[in-house]
């Protein structure tokens, strides 16, 4: 609980970041549909925003590693899993608040579209979990924030385009769709589309796949690095 509170306070102290995290979703909700019978682009593009938000939030864990705080913590009787779960839970809380803001705004703006709000909220929640675990894994690969952010800004955009976050899945060529199945963002967009088409069974499978990816990334990213 100490780490959870600490991580929450540490994030909320960054006023600019908090304002951006809670205000940008409002503006994202305004992005229109690509075509009259497709999902509003705001629903999928918001996924990209979740990915970047998670990246900025989990930066603290990278900072702790670079500044050797993790080594100091390792010298105390505190377990690494307490440190990690406290931090990740705090980031999830922030992302869930962000999701709620977006869903309220989107349901107000897109009241003409019939979508299962609960399932949509669950999709965003699971994608938030994935984003946190993925960025945790990502930060584990790098020794400096500058390199991490430089590679991520390119990689995330590629993942977003191929995975159908910035382009509707229907517009993607079949070859790319074949490759895109290995990306969690593809299954996120797939889930959103399934909810839009009222195909809840497929949506649940897609969400399970996203969760499966999240567990894989957590499995690899949770490894403690002390160097």
């Amino acid at each position: 609980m100490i780490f959870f509170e600490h991580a929450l306070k540490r994030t909320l102290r960054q006023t600019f970041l908090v304002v951006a995290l809670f205000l940008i979703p409002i503006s994202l909700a305004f992005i229109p549909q690509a075509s009259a019978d497709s999902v509003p682009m705001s629903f999928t593009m918001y996924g990209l925003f979740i990915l970047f938000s998670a990246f900025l939030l989990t930066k603290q864990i990278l900072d702790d590693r670079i500044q050797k705080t993790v080594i100091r913590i390792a010298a105390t009787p505190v377990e690494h899993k307490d440190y990690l779960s406290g931090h990740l839970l705090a980031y999830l809380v922030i992302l869930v608040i962000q999701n709620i803001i977006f869903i309220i705004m989107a349901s107000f703006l897109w009241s003409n579209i019939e979508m299962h709000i609960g399932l949509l909220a669950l999709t965003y929640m699971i994608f938030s979990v994935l984003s946190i675990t993925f960025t945790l894994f990502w930060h584990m690969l790098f020794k400096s924030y500058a390199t991490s952010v430089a590679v991520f800004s390119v990689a995330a955009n590629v993942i977003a385009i191929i995975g159908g976050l910035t382009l509707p899945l229907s517009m993607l060529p079949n070859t790319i769709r074949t490759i895109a199945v290995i990306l969690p963002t593809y299954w996120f967009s797939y889930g959103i589309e399934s909810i839009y088409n009222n195909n809840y069974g497929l949506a649940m499978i897609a969400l399970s796949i996203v969760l499966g990816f999240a567990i894989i990334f957590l499995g690899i990213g949770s490894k403690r690095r002390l160097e």
Partner: protein
Amino acid sequence: MKTIFLNPKYWDWLTLSLLTLAILILTRPQAPAVFLLFLIYLNILILRLRFKHTTSFLFIDALLVLLFSLYWQPALYLLILVMYLMARDEQWLFTLIPLFIITLFRFNDIALWLMVLFMALIATLITLWEETLSDHVKTVDGLRKSLYHSERKHHNIIEEQNETTRIAVLTERDRIAQQLHDDLGHELTAGLLSLKAHHTLLKNNRQDENTLSEALKRIENATSQLKNTVHNTKPLETYGLSTFEQHIHRCKLDIEYHKSGQITQLNPHLWPVLNQTLKEALTNILKHAHATHVRVELHKTDHVIRLTIENDGLVKPVTKHHGMGLTYMRNRIETLGGSLSIQTTRQRFTLITLIPLGGDQ
């Protein structure tokens, strides 16, 4: 990054990632349900890698893959990953079961057999590498341990040497005290008693020449015995500072000698090292330096003894590999926790020996 590539575990991750990617490309699990099952198996695989597992658990994995293959046959490719983990656990015999399943259902799949071969090769290489690495780690650990023990032994020997010196000094003091008491004490007491008797007689206005001459005789005896005792106690061979100074006086060079601090109080076990160092240095100067002037300075503080030997002779540049004499000299000094350094300028070659006294003074 260097450590990552030197660790077999990271190569396990890399190999499994490559194999998974190859399986994904070859089998193309497009349908959501198939992909979900695929992902569930990958999750199990990562759990096996992240946490310690019993090899027999891998049979459960094989069974899961078999069940999965009933729904989607290309899932049998996942058996390669199961086999890799079995091989890395050095349970090659276990791999026969997944191999039998592959033979039974996909005997004609060349791509699958190639991947099995690749997997077997990599698993063998990494296992062999890990064994060699583990042997090296054990050797290094053993060397570290023996180094630690020899350092401890060395420390104990130095302590025992100091203790022996201390006991020798105490024994010698005891011997001298006993000799003074036995030889000198009795004569002085007898002389004192005679003087007291004479003093009493003088008080009573009586004079006795016998008591006075007796006292004189006793004191004369005591004086000659004192001389004998000192003569007998003094060691026949010189040691310590006198030997050190003898080396300087005997040397044919023009030596300017200075000493400062309470040198006579120096622990005796340091003298052999200082003498050897001086002898070696002076011999070197005579043999190689052709010096006209040598300056020897011995300076003692509360914590350190410093011997500086400086000459104006031929100055050779100092190389990393010194002669044997200098090496032995350095070893002797380092045994006592000291250091030997050489300073050279155009006109001077200076040898500085520094030995800590370590509070044993």
